[in-house]
């Protein structure tokens, strides 16, 4: 939670600097973005665990697939409702809750869609924390994991395990892991369409 506050503070301070000063940071943004993407790649390569995927069987693949299809269709619907070009809407929804990746990637091309991508995915994380405990009263707990997207392997995992039970840990972790591997590839592909 402290880090979330730091992230929001950074965004707010940056916004004030951009709005009220004329300071230029040159290509520091791009350098930081490529550094972050490199570290994400390093972390992905280091932490991929195939044995956990094997334990779960079909559910390990079906659940992330459902999240991908559902998120993209949700984004498509949002594009019609909000009158946002489909490319940007799909890019925003392909973050699957990974706000720290989606925001900067989209901001490379458009500051506004970058901020929407950031906030939409951050909101998804916050809403997962608030609504997972309610969702499992009506929906099977392993299927309700899908609402969290990539966050189910880290930030929302404690909530999911606390309310869904320990047996849900591997399902949630693998779901988040697979989506975490997909998002960094899917967003740039959509943006290049």
């Amino acid at each position: 939670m402290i880090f979330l506050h730091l992230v929001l503070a950074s965004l707010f301070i940056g916004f004030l600097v951009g709005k009220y000063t004329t300071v230029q940071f040159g290509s520091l943004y791009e350098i930081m973005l490529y550094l972050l993407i490199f570290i994400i790649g390093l972390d992905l390569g280091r932490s991929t665990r195939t044995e956990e995927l094997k334990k779960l069987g079909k559910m390990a693949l079906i659940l992330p697939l459902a999240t991908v299809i559902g998120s993209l269709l949700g984004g498509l619907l949002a594009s019609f409702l909000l009158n946002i070009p489909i490319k940007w809407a799909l890019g925003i929804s392909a973050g699957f809750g990974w706000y720290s990746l989606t925001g900067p990637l989209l901001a490379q091309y458009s500051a506004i869609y970058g901020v929407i991508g950031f906030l939409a995915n951050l909101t998804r994380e916050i809403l997962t924390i608030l609504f997972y405990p309610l969702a499992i009263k009506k929906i099977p707990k392993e299927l309700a994991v899908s609402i969290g997207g990539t966050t189910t392997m880290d930030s929302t995992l404690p909530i999911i395990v606390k309310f869904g039970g320990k047996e849900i840990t591997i399902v949630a972790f693998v779901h988040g892991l697979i989506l975490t591997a997909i998002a960094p590839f899917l967003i740039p592909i959509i943006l290049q369409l």
Partner: protein
Amino acid sequence: MNIFIPLVIGAILGCLFKNKIKVDLNRLMSVTLLMLVFFMGVEAGKVEINAINLFVASFTFAVLTMLGSLFFAVLLGGRLR
């Protein structure tokens, strides 16, 4: 530069040096992210933003992507239970 290049290089290096990387990647990622978010805020500050529209758009995307995911999870995953 294409975004895939640092990602793929990082993933390959991560796989190759799985047990040799002693750097705290989480801390490094957090610092980089905070700086990146700051620069993103700077860029956003330079353009006119309607805060209410921004909030409505973000909330709509969050809710619809969550509901879409849940719908397809029940539709596809429900058969496996």
